[in-house]
């Protein structure tokens, strides 16, 4: 999966000598899709499960139950019909899969690389890619503020504040929902989900991988979850 990131960064490095957040953005964008591009949509992140490509986004972006067909537009502009395969309402996550199945071989959908939250620290730079207010593939930078439950979370939907969140000092808008929050190496630390008091809240990548692990891949045999980095 690293192969998808390195060439983009290396190529840019030859052209620019300044440290390039743009290179990170370019690398991350390849794995970010638009979900429901018909307005009021959001973003999604491509992950790999045993060579099969799936898209993770927010449940609230899909606005439908399992089985709902949904349009996805890749970074290259390819329109794909997918459907909602699984929903985790508690964490506001959904998994979209292609119909027919999209595989690594046939698609130009590079999978994102999950990051390591054990190395995440307050103050480190983070990058978000999404489609704020419909502006496709916009990149935003900021810093990680903290990881954990949201302080004084009474205003958040029932029980949500008590869950662990990546809390980032970064400016997000509608359309960033479902998109990735990455470190400066382009590795996904979380899925941007909501904003509280101006603070961006993202579902930590560990929770996303856990969800992918639970995901019943009916049509693919020999599921090896280790492909997405979860210790089995």
């Amino acid at each position, binding site marked *: 999966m690293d192969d998808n990131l390195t060439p983009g960064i*290396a190529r840019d490095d030859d052209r620019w000598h300044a440290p390039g957040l743009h290179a990170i953005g370019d690398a991350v964008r390849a794995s970010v899709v638009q979900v429901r591009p018909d307005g009021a949509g959001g973003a999604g992140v491509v992950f790999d499960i045993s060579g099969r490509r799936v898209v993770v986004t927010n449940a609230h972006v899909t606005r439908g139950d399992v089985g709902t067909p949904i349009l996805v537009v890749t970074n290259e502009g390819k329109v794909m019909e997918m459907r909602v395969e699984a929903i985790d309402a508690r964490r506001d996550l959904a998994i979209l899969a292609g119909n027919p199945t999209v595989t690594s071989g046939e698609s130009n959908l590079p999978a994102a690389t999950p990051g390591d939250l054990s190395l995440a620290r307050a103050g*480190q730079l983070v990058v978000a890619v999404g489609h704020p207010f419909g502006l496709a593939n916009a990149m935003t930078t900021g810093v990680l503020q903290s990881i954990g439950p949201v302080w004084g979370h009474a205003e958040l939907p029932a029980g949500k504040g008590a869950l662990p969140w990546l809390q980032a000092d970064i400016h997000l808008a509608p359309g960033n929902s479902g998109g990735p929050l990455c470190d400066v190496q382009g590795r996904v630390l979380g899925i941007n989900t909501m904003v509280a008091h101006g603070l961006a809240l993202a579902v930590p990548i560990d929770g996303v991988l856990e969800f992918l692990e639970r995901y019943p891949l009916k049509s693919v045999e020999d599921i090896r979850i280790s492909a997405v980095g979860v210790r089995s």
Partner: protein
Amino acid sequence: MSNASQTLLDLSDQLALAVENGGASTVAVHARPQMPSSGVHWRDGFIVTTNGTVRRDGDLAVTLPDGNRISATLAGRDSSTDLAILKISTGTMPTPAFGEPAALKAGHLVFALARLDSTGPRAAFGAVSLMAGPWRSWSGGEIDRLIQSDLNLYPGFGGGPLIDAAGRVLGINSGRLSRPFATTIPVETVNRVIDQLASRGYVRRGYLGAGMQSVRLQPGVIQTLKLERDSGLLITTIQSDGPAANGGLFVGDVIVGLAGKPVTEPEDVLKVLGGDTAGTSLSLNLVRGGRLETVALLIGERPRGR
């Protein structure tokens, strides 16, 4: 990994290290209902926070960087500079490295730090947007320099430090003085106020006990008395038994000089009375009955809460 990527990673690591260093002396302050605020272990045994976030005088506590919650007592507060000082037992945690606000320029990268509970520190990132000279807060406090930053002071960030990219403390972020920009009370102001609060519990301010307003002087008077300015301060009210009354001032006197310097606006008087001036002598140049007179009076101490 490419050089560009490595440079960014190094930068990101440096910023996170700055937060870690600054966070080592940043505490959570439990002095109001619901959400705590933040504070800095400024000197051994003394926590500095903002006055606006200390809503009660007793039952105070702080959460230390190691997660322990300990009790604290109020050592003093000053609403004019929005600072409050809490006392905790000595030797519990390190004090910070201080930066130099004088060297700070618009564009420098800065963090606001907070601590709300046993986790943290929490960080908000931005750049200095404006540096300027001394100013007076709307409640009359003298602040040695204006530091405004383009960063978001999230709930609970009031009372926490502004730090530079090396983790050095530049001052205390005040939510109350921050509308609309994030405003920081600089290190030198905090040091000045903490000296008075630690010894006395409040900041002593000079006081004359007279009301005055700016008036233009007649050209003939200016010429005859060889005055430097064309206006002065007309005394309109005098508090009985106050410093002005005791010094023999009358309603109708026009102050044209204080301590040898011309004065034309009430603000000029506040400047002279600033700092720890209570109890010292002050000479006034007055126009009284068309003549110039010099009167000496003893600067009083402004009653607290005024």
